[in-house]
């Protein structure tokens, strides 16, 4: 019984923490957003020059460290990797470009819907479409091949880097960049944001919450447990937002969002498609990276790279809408992801599974 309730509880907890973070200062409907947090962190490190989105998000660091701590305690920390890392880096970058065209990762998509943002609800159709497309390739035999044991320096790389950045934020913030206005300037107190991230990393590891997995497993295996977390997050999010006066149903004037419905669908479609090929959504990649998976670490680096180029070359959308560069980048990114999917489904030498 408790096992069955695990994911709904985690979903509800995620909604509660997210609403609290917004009330304490985070941008609207952005209690958690992996794409946004990695983009802000990339900005704080000077990897892009968009002054409105520069801040080392303690939530992102917390997720990695939370997953690390629990995986060490449960002895599930395992340094593994080597499954097409460069391909994963590229997929991570493409997923980030899709997320920044929509303005949010799948987790923020749900939080936006829970805040009454109908643009995100429309975007959800694209997300599902992208997942179904990814599943088509999975069923045809798509694989990035096996992971193997790797050095612990690989497994611990992201947790140590995260701690290093956290120490910099605490002790020498002057070398980092901080937004003075815009989403990067909207932030919950550092210690609370860090604690929220730690909790999410811990429960994310225990529950294996994944926003792509929820939809994928429901369709593919008729396993609705992950989806139940998704639904609990949505329901508790809607109720919480109504109680705290954060619910604003409609298309217009939504926080950090635009109303170009086609691009919301396409952006999230790319996120869904790329995430299925990666084996998990951006949140799941962060949690796996914290627990020693160096393929996920490479994916996170790819997402940071994607965020940097998205802002350096004006690919990312803004509340004013998408950009021409962003639309061109979308086409290029989709072509790359399709090429990766096709090659690793139909042309790559198959993994030998029968012993």
């Amino acid at each position, binding site marked *: 019984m408790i096992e069955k309730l695990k994911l709904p509880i985690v979903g509800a907890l995620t909604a509660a923490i997210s609403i609290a973070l917004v009330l304490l200062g985070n941008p609207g409907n952005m209690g958690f957003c992996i794409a946004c947090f990695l983009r802000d962190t990339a900005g704080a490190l000077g990897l892009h020059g968009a002054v409105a989105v520069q801040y080392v998000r303690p939530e992102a660091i917390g997720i990695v460290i939370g997953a690390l701590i629990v995986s060490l305690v449960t002895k599930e920390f395992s340094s593994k990797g080597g499954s097409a890392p460069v391909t994963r880096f590229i997929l991570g970058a493409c997923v980030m470009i899709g997320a920044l065209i929509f303005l949010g990762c799948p987790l923020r998509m749900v939080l936006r819907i829970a805040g009454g943002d109908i643009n995100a609800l429309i975007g959800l159709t694209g997300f599902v479409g992208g997942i179904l497309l990814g599943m088509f390739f*999975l069923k045809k035999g798509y694989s990035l091949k*096996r992971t193997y044991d790797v050095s612990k320096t690989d497994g611990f790389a992201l947790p140590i880097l995260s701690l290093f950045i956290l120490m910099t934020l605490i002790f020498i913030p002057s070398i980092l960049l901080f937004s003075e206005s815009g989403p990067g300037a909207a932030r919950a107190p550092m210690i609370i944001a860090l604690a929220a991230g730690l909790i999410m990393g811990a429960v994310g590891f225990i529950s294996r919450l994944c926003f792509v997995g929820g939809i994928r497993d429901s369709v593919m295996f008729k*396993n609705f447990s992950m989806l139940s977390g998704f639904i609990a997050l949505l329901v508790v999010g809607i109720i919480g937002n109504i109680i705290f006066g954060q619910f604003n149903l409609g298309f217009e004037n939504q926080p950090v969002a635009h109303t170009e419905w086609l691009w919301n669908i396409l952006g999230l479609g790319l996120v869904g498609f790329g995430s299925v090929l990666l084996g998990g959504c951006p949140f799941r990649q962060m949690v796996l990276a914290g627990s020693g998976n160096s393929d996920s670490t490479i994916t996170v680096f790819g997402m940071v790279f994607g965020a940097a180029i998205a802002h350096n070359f004006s690919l990312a959308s803004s509340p004013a809408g998408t950009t021409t560069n962003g639309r061109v980048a979308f086409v290029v990114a989709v072509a790359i992801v399709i090429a990766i999917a096709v090659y690793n489904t139909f042309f790559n030498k198959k993994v030998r*599974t*029968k012993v």
Partner: protein
Amino acid sequence: MTTLDARGVSCPEPLLMLQTALKTDKSLVLLVDSKNAFENCESYARKQGFTVETEIDDDTFKLRII
């Protein structure tokens, strides 16, 4: 009895391999190396009416699905 080696492949490939194999095989041995894959595959096989015996050896979970 067929042995399927699903060690090291990404989620959800182990479950997908198992799902495909169970369409033709009435019994098989499945090797996985993550608790995640182990739990997913064990639960799926049980739901399909199979009996699952498990051996854990270092990093490998060996599921005998009958």
